[in-house]
């Protein structure tokens, strides 16, 4: 599937959604899409026109970093997405204690009543740990398998 480079209007739509969800005001760089709703952020020096040329001649496998996914309830930021945009995230942040963060990074859903529904940024101290989805009873986990702590890895 080719890489789609978002135009100004499309990028603004993404930004509007991120602003409403997390207070993000700016995304510097090109926003790209590859695969079903998978968003990538490219902050190199090439412009949209050059990207089309690269696609034709080089067939890019990946450009920039995967930073989020468009879901029907909004945009879910990846671990990197939450880390890259951390200075701008002002709302819908859920602070985890160390024990909760450990469970979170093991890929477990957290049985916590947040008091709201939808995507929330997971944070523990200085660490931004991606996005969870809050429902009435729990926070759904999206940590990909290759980024999970295994319980035997948790050494105190």
């Amino acid at each position, binding site marked *: 599937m080719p890489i789609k480079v978002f135009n100004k209007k499309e990028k603004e739509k993404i930004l509007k959604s991120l602003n409403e969800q997390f207070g993000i005001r700016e995304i510097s760089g090109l926003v790209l899409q590859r695969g079903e709703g998978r968003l990538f952020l490219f*902050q*190199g020096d090439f412009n949209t026109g050059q990207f089309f040329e690269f696609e034709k001649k080089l067939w890019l496998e990946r450009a920039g*970093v995967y930073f989020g996914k468009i879901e029907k309830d909004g945009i879910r930021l990846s671990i990197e997405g939450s*880390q890259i945009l951390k200075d701008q995230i002002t709302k819908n942040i859920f602070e985890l204690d160390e024990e909760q963060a450990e469970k979170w990074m093991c890929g477990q859903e957290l049985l916590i009543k947040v008091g709201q529904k939808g995507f929330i940024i997971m944070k523990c101290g200085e660490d931004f740990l991606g996005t969870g989805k809050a429902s009435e009873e729990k926070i759904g986990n999206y940590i990909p398998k290759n980024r999970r702590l295994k319980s035997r890895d948790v050494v105190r």
Partner: protein
Amino acid sequence: MKTKKIPEMKPAFLERMKLLLPDEKDLQSYLDILKVKPVKSFRCNTLKISPENLKKRLEAKRWKIFQPWENYPEVMIVEGKYVRSCAQIDKLATDSVKSLVEINNTTNKKSLKEELPFNKVLVKKSDSVDFEVNQLRAKGEQILQDLEPGEFGRSLEHLLGYYYIQELASMLPIVALKPNEDEIFLDLCAAPGSKTTQVVAEMKNTGNVFANEVSLGRLRILASNLERCGTTNTLITKKDGIILCKRFKELGIFPDKILVDAPCSGEGTLRSSYQTYLMWNEKTIKRLSKIQKKLVESAIEILKSGGEMIYSTCTHAPEENEEVVNWVLENFPEMKLENIELPIKTRPGLTKWQDKEFSSELKKCARVYPHDNDTEGFFVAKLKKCQ
């Protein structure tokens, strides 16, 4: 813990190493260090965290961190983990008792008794463990022990992309190349991404970095590592290096810097990859030498005038190192060898190998032997395209 048996070095390989290290003591030091596992080195990913903060975090986990290179605080080694708590001491005692119980249960007591005074052995072992534990308790001493299996590669800090596990010698090509912000950089044989992520960190995610890898399996690892490290200025391609360079030419992309960390026979990786002992053969070296020359030739064609290129391998084989660089000097007069400054002990490149004579310029290349710095083996040459 099970330890793998080190395979025997092939006689032809040993003969070649004798030629490279003619001094007997030197050769013995080399052979000796091959039996020792390499140190656990890693590089702080400065795109996400500062070396100071990372060090503090890891030390809070009681890891003993050492920064071996004065001017490169991001380069670190974990020497082990301090164990001080009573719980750990108790674990030592419990484990010892457990193992004694196992001996007691599983051993044929009768036969053992015939050979050894079994009860006496038990008492003696218990005494020694008790003595050790009591001493630790009394002194409040800290013990430095190895990290537990998986602890290094699956720590929270690693999973969050705060550090990248990388062998010290493998960091040298980028140290030698000194990439600058806003440049166009091409890593022609990029997987698994150690040097690409190092470059991107040096360039602070500015400019453009092309990371190419021809193998699909290795490309996935590359993509995963670049993602974990948060590289936003990278473009990944999956092309044969020679074809990629042709496409670059058609597109008018002329990188400021190129890394050709070429596929090689891997003689320098014996400490971590025992497979190399088995796979090594002279035929492969000759075959690889041809591929390496083609890759370098293609890279030279697209290197910007005034640009710099690193040719590196993780092998000691001169056919894959000095012979390739000498071939470049003979066939591309615009290419000049540059001096390299590295933070570890290196030896000059060879000017003669078997019946072949090389340019005296080859002394500017850097050979890294494992026993000189307790690293893997490496070869680095820095070339400049003169205007």
